[in-house]
């Protein structure tokens, strides 16, 4: 579910804007760092810290988008790869410089550290909270992209950039907003999941493969896709690690391959 929370942001930037954004994990990591710092150094409660992280990361991503990303829209994919990998490397060193090489601990607030008893059986509160957040986000995003004027504009610009410009959509600003939204989502996801995906300087590099897999399996530009993919891969992964601990990791990658062979555009991708 954490993977979903982060990957959906990537799906937004990669799918909607057509930009190979390998630096997505950087924004997730930044979110995680903001949350842990706010909580441990200034004693901000969990939920405000999360919101703060989302806002801070999306604001912080705007100058990066203006200065760097915007030059490469519609450009060579390889240049995009180089640029974003460069950002990843810089983030690794930057995070080490500011926060040190150690992993940042997250203490979930008391109301999340216990278990919730639903009568039938009890569930760990933190994980349940994550799942609820994920479900809420999926609904909100889906409504936002499919049912609002903003979403319609985004989809129009993605499908046909020049046409969208000629009917008076300010695509440059629109992309900036979309990018900020995607990065904000990453920040939120990174913060929320800080307890499960440990926040450390190598975060963006270590988890890159997972984010990409979820997005690729789910389908680019889709909101539901990464949701289903993260759910499917997560369940399959833990299931097989439970059943066949020796071969757990093999299975999930083989599954990914099979799905991509069957549907190269992902489960919910548009051809």
């Amino acid at each position, binding site marked *: 579910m954490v993977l979903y929370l982060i990957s959906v942001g990537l799906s937004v930037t990669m799918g909607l804007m057509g930009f190979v954004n390998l630096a997505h994990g950087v924004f997730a990591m930044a979110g995680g760092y903001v949350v842990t710092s706010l909580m441990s150094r200034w004693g901000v409660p969990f939920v405000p810290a999360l919101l703060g992280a989302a806002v801070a990361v999306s604001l912080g991503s705007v100058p990066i988008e203006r200065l760097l990303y915007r030059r490469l829209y519609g450009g060579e994919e*390889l240049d995009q790869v180089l640029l974003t990998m460069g950002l990843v490397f810089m983030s690794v060193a930057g995070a*080490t410089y500011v926060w040190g090489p150690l992993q940042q601990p997250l203490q979930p607030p008391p109301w999340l550290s216990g278990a919730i008893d639903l009568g039938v059986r009890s569930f760990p509160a933190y994980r349940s909270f994550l799942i609820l957040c994920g479900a809420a986000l999926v609904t909100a995003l889906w409504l936002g992209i499919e049912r609002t004027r903003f979403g319609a504009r985004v989809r129009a610009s993605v499908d046909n950039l020049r046409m969208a410009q000629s009917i008076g959509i300010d695509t440059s600003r629109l992309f900036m907003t979309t990018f900020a939204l995607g990065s904000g989502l990453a920040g939120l996801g990174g913060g929320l999941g800080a307890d499960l995906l440990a926040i450390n300087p190598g975060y963006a590099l270590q988890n890159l493969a997972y984010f990409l897999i979820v997005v690729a399996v789910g389908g680019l530009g889709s909101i539901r896709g990464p949701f289903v993919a993260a759910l499917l891969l997560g369940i399959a992964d833990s299931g097989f690690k439970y059943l066949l601990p020796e071969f757990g990791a093999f299975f999930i990658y083989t599954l990914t*391959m099979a799905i991509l062979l069957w549907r*190269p555009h992902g489960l919910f991708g548009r051809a």
Partner: protein
Amino acid sequence: MTPSRAVEAFARRHRYHPFEALPWLAAVAAYFVFPDYLALGAQILATILFALSADLVLGYAGIVTLGHAAFFGTGAYTAGILAAHGWGEPITGLIAGAGAAALSGFLSGLVVLRTTGLALLMQTLVVATLVAEAANKASFITGGDDGLQGMEVWPICGWFHFDLFGHTSYAYCLAVLFLCWLAARRIVHSPFGRSLTGIRENVRRMHAIGAPVARRRLTIYTISAALAGVSGALIAQTTQFVSLSFLSLERSGTVLIMLIIGGVGRLYGPFIGVPLYMVAQNRFSEIDPVYWYFWIGLLMVLVVIFARGGVLGLFDRFRR
């Protein structure tokens, strides 16, 4: 242009240009100018070969791969395991590494090359991860996390011993790189290479004129895997060590980066990008051991902004 002049122009492209001697002269000169850095130099030469192999698939056939380390590592482990189990003859080791890598390239290519675009990228990444996971699990052969130890590489042709200062390694790597480069150049300029460029530029038209696209792609993927295997085997033999990092995503990523910095699809891109990246990495990590990543990252961002198409792309722009 009259037909005969066009034919002439085409023929001229295949001939050796005096400029093509430059990287080789530089490499030979480096042997005498930087005698203290020959070990690094040998690594650079072997990595150039790795980047060259990636260039064949990426630059010429347009197959974007994030899993080339799989073949690099396969070659390295094959040569390494042979040397650790009593067969340290280097040249047959290279050939075995190339063969194993080519085989894995062929088998994975059968599956992976059915897709294109992002799916292809992910498939190659997944293959590399699977290979790395397999090497990790088979720790009784590969040494797992600790790396493969106890390699004993025999002298080349029973004559040239691998010395501590890397004189032999450097010359050995240079010779192998030169031979492989000749082969790669021949491939690129052959009709087969031309049809690869055609596939990169316009797959549909190549289908339409009846080119066996899938088979061509598989062939070049296998050749490239073999070259990557040679490169891995070279590094394994000269450093006498193989670890799981040989198979990592990071390795696949950095080779792409070095290639892009130099310039993709040019045969000479690796000769610029790899030394630039590796020397920069070496210098930065000496000056600033903790934060050298930052400076490498900055270098990459600057290349994208100011030197689109790599360093060689920059030269092109000045010439115009």
